[in-house]
């Protein structure tokens, strides 16, 4: 198990480093700077601005400085929101985004796995058909369509929930965002669980469990479900990536002050440090969750540890 864990870490860490280097290089080598969209600056002011932000140094020096600062958790000043450092902006937005993502994944698990089990047990019947169709729809609809559609239905027409916004963190402002974000993940989990449980139910050991006279519930709980959920565990890594991506849209649709909105706004403003910092934090998070999912999988299924 230890060597498996070390092998996984040995893949994740260089990946993060490559991402840091790539995004740094891309952003610094590109045409267009953060001060391009301002009123015309005199050369002296321009030179001063460049010096304050270190933009006049050689690239290698900028890179070394950046890496050193990163190690201290300092992502530098934001270029578009002058009064804040990137770390402050991330610190402001991340708790909300993390709550949103975590709640969405939990809800998706609570909805998707039981739906998949139900469909698998009712295979070929009307319930199975309905659930499979729903799952296909959930996977096909992009969040930037379902989000506004749900807000239109439950906010504008039914007045059950707020359409958008965030008033001092009242939970009801999170309901629609979390549901929107959870739906595609739940749909995917349902499809995955259904397929994998059907496969397990066909195996010999399930048949022999039945042959020993065990009841359907016992066969399901003690024999079929655990192996059937293995692929679901391995999907959790990609699910985190999906939720991270989806939160950008959700925070835009529902006007939530999370870090995803800073990332989008930063990209529009060409705020290099902000975008770079956000991408690194998000990439680190995604890679970390992938790693955790891999380790969990390896712990659950010894076969995965052999390479």
């Amino acid at each position, binding site marked *: 198990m230890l060597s498996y864990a070390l092998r996984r870490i040995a893949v994740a860490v260089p990946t993060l480093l490559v991402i840091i280097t790539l995004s740094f290089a891309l952003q610094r080598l590109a045409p267009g700077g953060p001060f391009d969209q301002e009123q015309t600056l005199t050369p002296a002011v321009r030179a001063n601005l460049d010096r304050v932000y270190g933009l006049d140094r050689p690239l290698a020096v900028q890179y070394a400085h950046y890496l050193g600062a990163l190690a201290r958790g300092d992502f530098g000043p934001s270029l578009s929101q002058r009064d804040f450092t990137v770390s402050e902006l991330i610190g402001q937005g991340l708790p909300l985004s993390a709550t949103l993502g975590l709640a969405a994944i939990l809800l998706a698990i609570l909805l998707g796995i039981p739906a998949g089990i139900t469909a698998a047990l009712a295979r070929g019947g009307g319930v199975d058909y309905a659930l499979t169709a729903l799952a296909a729809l959930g996977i096909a609809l992009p969040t930037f369509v379902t989000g*506004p559609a749900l807000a239109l239905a439950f906010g504008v027409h039914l007045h059950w929930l707020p359409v958008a916004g965030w008033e001092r963190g009242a939970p009801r402002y999170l309901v629609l965002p979390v549901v929107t974000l959870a739906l595609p993940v739940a749909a995917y989990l349902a499809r995955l669980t259904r397929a994998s449980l059907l496969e397990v139910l066909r195996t010999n050991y399930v048949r022999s469990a039945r042959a020993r006279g065990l009841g359907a519930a016992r066969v399901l709980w003690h024999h079929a479900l655990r192996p059937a959920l293995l692929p679901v565990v391995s999907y959790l890594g990609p699910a985190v990536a999906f939720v991270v991506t989806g939160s950008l849209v959700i925070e835009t649709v529902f006007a939530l002050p999370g870090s995803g909105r800073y990332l989008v706004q930063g990209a*529009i403003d060409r705020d290099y440090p902000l975008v770079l910092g956000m991408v690194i934090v998000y990439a680190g998070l*995604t890679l970390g969750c992938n790693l955790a999912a891999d380790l969990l999988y390896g712990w659950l299924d010894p076969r995965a540890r052999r390479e």
Partner: protein
Amino acid sequence: MSEAAAGRGLWRDAARRLGANRAARTALILLGLVALLALLAPPASPWAFDSLDWRHLAQPPGLAAAHWFGTDRLGRDLFVRTLHGVRLSLLISLLASAISVGIGLAWGALAGFAGGRTEEAMMRFVDVLYSLPYLFIVIILSTVIGRGSIAVLLLAIAAVGWLTTARIVHGQTLQLKRREFIEAARATGVPTAGILVRHILPNLAGTVVVYAMLTVPQMILFESFLSFLGLGVQEPYASLGNLINAGAQEMESAPWMLLVPAAFLVLLLTCLNLLGDGLRDALDPRER
């Protein structure tokens, strides 16, 4: 002679199987209709995508009205704008798919065929990019290059689209490489480039066509996603993404502005996915 007939047979077989698939057939017909509408209707309409009709601001849809799908707050015709968006989405996604499938095909086939350290390095590069959520790559690229131009958008979308194709082609090439007919070609002295072009690539054609088809809806999704976030197609040009974004902001007073482009997007995505699935089943009947 017989070889040529057999070669045609595969594709003719696939076309027959595709035709027999009711979902795929319906999808193809619907797609054809939408594409035709998107091509022919805007020039035939009295309104341009950016012309303002001051007498009909934020007009709801109606067949008897001057604007079938209504207008936005500036009095722009939503029918024309939506179809312009469809046209742009189809154009961008087809081009981006062609570019990314081309890159993926070349990358995967070369890596698979080269073997050794080259292969290792090439595929590791793909793994690294793959482990990042694709959106970050696109966001970095659009931060770097700036927004607004369709060429940039194309580049950004294609830059992430080729990864899946590269992986699949790589795997297929590895399988093909071990087959007897490649060994025979080598034994008879066909040069490496010749083997790649004459024997490997034609055998990849089925897979590549299927993935190209499945890439198109992905690309439409990327494009509208970016345009929705404000990083893609910019006003006054219409794309399904920025129309949906504009509609979401006006949905309390003018819900049709959201519903019309959203319906077209969902229709396009569903049809393209059904068609792609049908094509996969048609070209590879063993799957089912």
